[in-house]
């Protein structure tokens, strides 16, 4: 210590002593006193992963229900609801799966339950079956006509509007309100069973719209329809490249 004070000026020597003492204390605290779990971050991650994995599971998963509820499962397998998990409607059922008699999942019967998915909403995708929950068979529970596990409507809808609600509602307040869907589209029966694989037909040529809108249109329906010269109107485009047929816009 004395040598330190000989070699270095007094203030520097004292500082060196203090710094060394602090370093020693710090090293002792870090390496000896502090337990590994506090300073090893990888150990903490491993613990966190273990804890995360041990969290309780509430939803049993779509395979589990089949073990006991085989007939319902088979029924659902071919219907419109085949992509739904049982727990989508019945809520978390892990507790029930482990102890079937102690807890039972919910069976939703209220009329407010099904419209959560099926009420009309213009943001819902095309072709998704939608109804107006106020006007559609008011007061009757949904399950009195539709079996939730095979929700075919009691009669095959003749109207396209059952699934194409957006288009039907749009058309209903447009100039084309008097046109049935079948005037322009032919839908084979199979379309109602496999809607995404078997599609209705669509008009292909300008002459189709010309049946009502051409200068020499003779169709009964075309009496008051606006007429254009098909040869000059609309350059090289087909009609629906500009006009939306379900709600045709016309420039004033």
């Amino acid at each position: 210590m004395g040598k330190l004070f000989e070699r270095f000026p007094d203030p520097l020597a004292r500082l060196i002593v203090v710094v060394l003492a602090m370093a020693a204390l710090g090293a002792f605290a870090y390496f000896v006193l502090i337990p590994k779990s506090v300073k090893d971050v990888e150990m903490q991650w491993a613990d966190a992963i273990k804890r995360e994995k041990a969290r309780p599971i509430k939803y049993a998963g779509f395979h589990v229900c089949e073990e006991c509820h085989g007939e319902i499962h088979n029924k659902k397998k071919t219907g419109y609801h085949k992509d739904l998990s049982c727990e989508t409607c019945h809520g978390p059922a892990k507790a029930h799966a482990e102890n079937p008699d102690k807890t039972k999942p919910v069976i939703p019967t209220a009329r407010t339950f099904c419209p959560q998915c099926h009420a009309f909403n213009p943001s819902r995708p095309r072709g998704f079956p939608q109804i107006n929950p106020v006007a559609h068979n008011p007061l009757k529970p949904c399950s009195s006509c539709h079996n939730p596990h095979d929700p075919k409507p009691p009669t095959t809808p003749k109207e396209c509007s059952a699934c194409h609600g957006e288009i039907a509602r749009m058309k209903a307040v447009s100039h084309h309100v008097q046109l049935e869907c079948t005037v322009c589209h032919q839908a084979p029966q199979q379309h109602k069973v496999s809607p995404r694989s078997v599609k209705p037909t669509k008009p292909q040529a300008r002459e189709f719209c010309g049946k009502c809108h051409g200068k020499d249109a003779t169709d009964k329906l075309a009496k008051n329809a606006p007429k254009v010269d098909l040869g000059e109107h609309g350059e090289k485009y087909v009609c629906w490249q500009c006009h939306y047929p379900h709600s045709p816009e016309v420039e004033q």
Partner: protein
Amino acid sequence: MNPEIIHSLKELLPQIQGYIYPNEIEIHWGLLIVVYPYITGVVAGAFILASLVKVFNVKEVQPLYRLSLLTALAYLLVAPMALVAHLGHAERFYEILLTPQTSSAMAMFGFVYAWYLMAVLLLEIWFVHRTDMIDMAEQSKGATRLLYRALSLFSKDKGERAVTFDHKALKVITIVGIPSAFLLHGYVGFIFGSIKANPWWSSVLIPIVFLFSAIVSGIALVVLLYMIITPLTGGKISMRCVDKAVDFLFYAVIVDFSLEMVDFIHRVYQSEEEIKILSEMVMKKLFGSLIIVQVLLGMLVPLLLISLTKIFRKRFGLNEDLRKMVYFISVILIQFGIFATRWNVVIGGQMFSKSFRGLTMYKMEFGGIEGLLFAILLLALPIIILAVLMKILPPWKEIHGEGVSEGVEVAGS
């Protein structure tokens, strides 16, 4: 479940304009995080002022030397309190020292802070006061004597070798201290500026703007303290000193204002996607704090006032009291302006949604740890600590202009 949190969030619901992500309704960095960069800013600014004396030999501001060092220390001690108080788990704060993540600016800042505190500020203050502490130890008795002995690390050497070393060390420390002070507050700016998710913060200029507004607030605060403390302790304000300090303050405000103007012009000119929601936020939510307080009252008015004292030098030169009043008003306005700057950066960055489609609101509490009361306490605490420090290490000889203190560079050494 804390019903207060839920209640205050419910109150915010009707205040939302447009669309915000559902999780964004809670503003996470509130008043405490506004106070924090204000405090570290003062530290950096006060230290730069001190270094004007030591490194750049600006003798006129000598009376402010010890005062700025002690101010820097007082504020530096309070800064981490704001941060730790804000944590969800304040009791786990030590983790930032034991398992710091090297990619996190916040973690690395802990070490920058520790470096600045230990290796720069405390060392400099110690070297400046060492011989004074020896003297005071000799003149006192009992516990006070023990205090001074301990503070001087039981040194008794006032010989030439030791004193020369003191001077040399001070030189080196201050030289190292200037970039360290830049690093200290620039790092705070970097913590904000490196968040690419937030276009109000994410900018190369933010660390620089933070730094210069820090210098402005630090110099202004030390001048303010000098102007209050000197007459209170029976001294006379040296106009030579204040004039020179305000000179530097003036240049700093010009640079700060120019930088902020550059940032503003750049954003408006480039007109990127976020400009719509940001301008809506500035005009609707930040109009008072940004246009009025930060720019007008905090920068333009002080600039105008100080320029007036320069332009009408003859008139003001005669009337010292008028000049003093102008300076006094300016430095107070600057404090509000810089605090508003911090507010606009921190709170402003959270008031618009990252979807760029909506605005929310910050509701300041009155009580509680994030409340106004606690923030005022934290802002007052450094003054109290400063008073204690000045009791232990009195800077009066220097402030009142008598004699030459240890810090002055003697020509030829």
